[in-house]
């Protein structure tokens, strides 16, 4: 799929900007704090209805203004769909084909994006929450039921933790309602667990050859889903539910004492293993970067398998963080198949050689001062 055009009105440091993009590589060049990441972020928001940089939609609205709009046209094999998102103090409105969508889970998935920013190099060694967020965002784009389930899970978890606190403070002694919340948590949580396990197996299959390639066939990558609910690959949903429920039952006294849910998908993690060692612990910085890059590139293929279309790729300041070998792998992997948006202060020599006919936008203080089609 391709994003053909983008319009920003009162978004971050843009007043009113319209851009038409190339189906290949688009580059946003400019000095610090000019609005390059803001542009990339707006494409991410158009796809996922939330930002990767802030959890407060208010930050997206240009200072002193009350509302912001992002709109764009997305081309898939046969269709050409206008999308728009409107932000104001009353919340956000998402439109597909000019029709307002009542559920965001219906909107998300119209435009699929993969973002690769310097922080993503932290995917391997960062906190577990970084990896959980990664699975939830990526898988959620491909599967609306998963997206819905993770949102429900968070809501139920919040209720259950609040109720455990009441029990802890002895504001109530009624455990029947706790049983209800446990049943809901197990029901939705088990679906989340199974979906994550399945997703990771497929991600591993897609990532292995890419990883082997970047490491010059010297290393093998495997992914392991580490969960507080003990189940093997290939376990069915009913069994996962039973195990999850038993695990919670065993913890119940401790949970009430601590006023918090101690096991479940919200505590899970992914382990990246290279040649039998956990890369987060034993890997060199280079190995950690290779792993992160392989995972990101694998996602592109996975999304293509799942949705029938390549997603668009957003690279925020990431090229300069990679050495020439990794830059080459990245740029070759996307060539001629994935519409890509790159931000950088300047382009490296490798990038200049490998990027075929980029469209370059020069960004200065919230305006595009020069647009050139490089041949």
């Amino acid at each position: 799929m391709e994003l053909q055009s983008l319009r920003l009105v009162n978004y971050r440091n843009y007043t009113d900007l319209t851009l038409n993009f190339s189906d290949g590589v688009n580059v946003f060049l400019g000095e610090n704090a000019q609005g390059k990441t803001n542009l990339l972020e707006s494409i991410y928001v158009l796809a996922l209805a939330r930002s990767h940089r802030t959890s407060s939609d208010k930050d997206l609205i240009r200072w002193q203004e009350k509302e912001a709009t992002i709109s764009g046209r997305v081309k898939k094999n046969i269709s050409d769909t206008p999308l728009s998102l409107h932000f104001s103090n009353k919340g956000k409105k998402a439109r597909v084909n000019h029709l307002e969508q009542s559920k965001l889970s219906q909107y998300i998935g119209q435009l699929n994006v993969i973002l690769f920013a310097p922080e993503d190099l932290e995917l391997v060694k960062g906190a577990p929450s970084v990896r959980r967020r990664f699975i939830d965002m990526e898988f959620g784009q491909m599967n609306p039921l998963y997206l819905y389930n993770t949102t429900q899970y968070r809501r139920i978890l919040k209720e259950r933790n609040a109720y455990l606190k009441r029990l802890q403070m002895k504001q109530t002694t009624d455990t029947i309602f706790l049983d209800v919340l446990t049943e809901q948590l197990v029901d939705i949580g088990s679906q989340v667990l199974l979906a994550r396990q399945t997703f990771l197996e497929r991600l591993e299959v897609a990532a292995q050859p890419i990883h082997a390639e970047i490491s010059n066939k010297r290393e093998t990558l495997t992914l392991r889903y580490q969960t507080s609910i003990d189940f093997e690959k290939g376990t069915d949903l009913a069994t996962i539910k039973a195990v999850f429920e038993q695990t919670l039952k065993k913890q119940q006294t401790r949970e009430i004492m601590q006023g918090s849910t101690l096991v479940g998908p919200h505590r899970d993690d992914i382990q990246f293993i290279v040649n039998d060692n956990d890369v987060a612990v034993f890997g060199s910085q280079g190995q950690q970067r290779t792993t992160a890059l392989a995972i990101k590139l694998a996602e592109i293929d996975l999304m293509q398998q799942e949705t029938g279309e390549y997603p668009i790729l957003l690279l925020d300041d990431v090229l300069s963080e990679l050495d020439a070998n990794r830059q080459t792998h990245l740029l070759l992997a996307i060539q001629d198949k994935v519409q890509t948006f790159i931000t950088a202060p300047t382009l490296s020599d490798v990038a200049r050689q490998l990027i075929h006919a980029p469209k370059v936008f020069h960004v200065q203080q919230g305006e595009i001062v020069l647009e050139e089609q490089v041949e």
Partner: protein
Amino acid sequence: MDYPEPIAKLIDSYTKLPGIGSKTATRLAFYTLGMDEKDVLDFSKSLVSAKKDLTFCSVCGNITENSINPCVICRDATRDQSTVFVVENSRDVMAMENTRDYHGLYHILNGVISPSAGTGPEDINLPSLIRRLSEHQEIDEVIVGTNVTAEGEATAMYLARLLKPAGIKVTRLAHGLAVGSDIDYADQLTLIKAVQGRTEL
């Protein structure tokens, strides 16, 4: 320049309504200035009376006039006294009554259980339902019509757990496709739920 106090106060009052920001409130306030004096008077009377002359039915929790308590539905002996339809609020009763297809009684919870919002099982109109059921042995079915949200579902499940041991039949409204809708227009989640809740023909 500031608005004269009376209009400023009116704008302020309008902004207290849900979904109304200061722009809309200002528009409404100026519109009100242009209205017939009689209409404005009626309007203000309705506002006060809605607050002063209404109360919650002592039996079912529905809104009713002060002078009619228990409410008209609870008083109506021709209604099926063996079935109670449990809903979140009075608007749901109106929706159900408009179908003219249900002839039993109601119980209005005036909320859902949501510990994170500070609402426990005892904070909604639920203890009175339990009392009502034990005092009225003729009630043998409770239909739970809370919303299909996580909180609505939890409230329904909680009711089922409390009532089933007492031998009361507890049923939940089916959810699925909207009548008259085409399958290809239904959203994916509705479709998935409809398939899960399919029935044999």
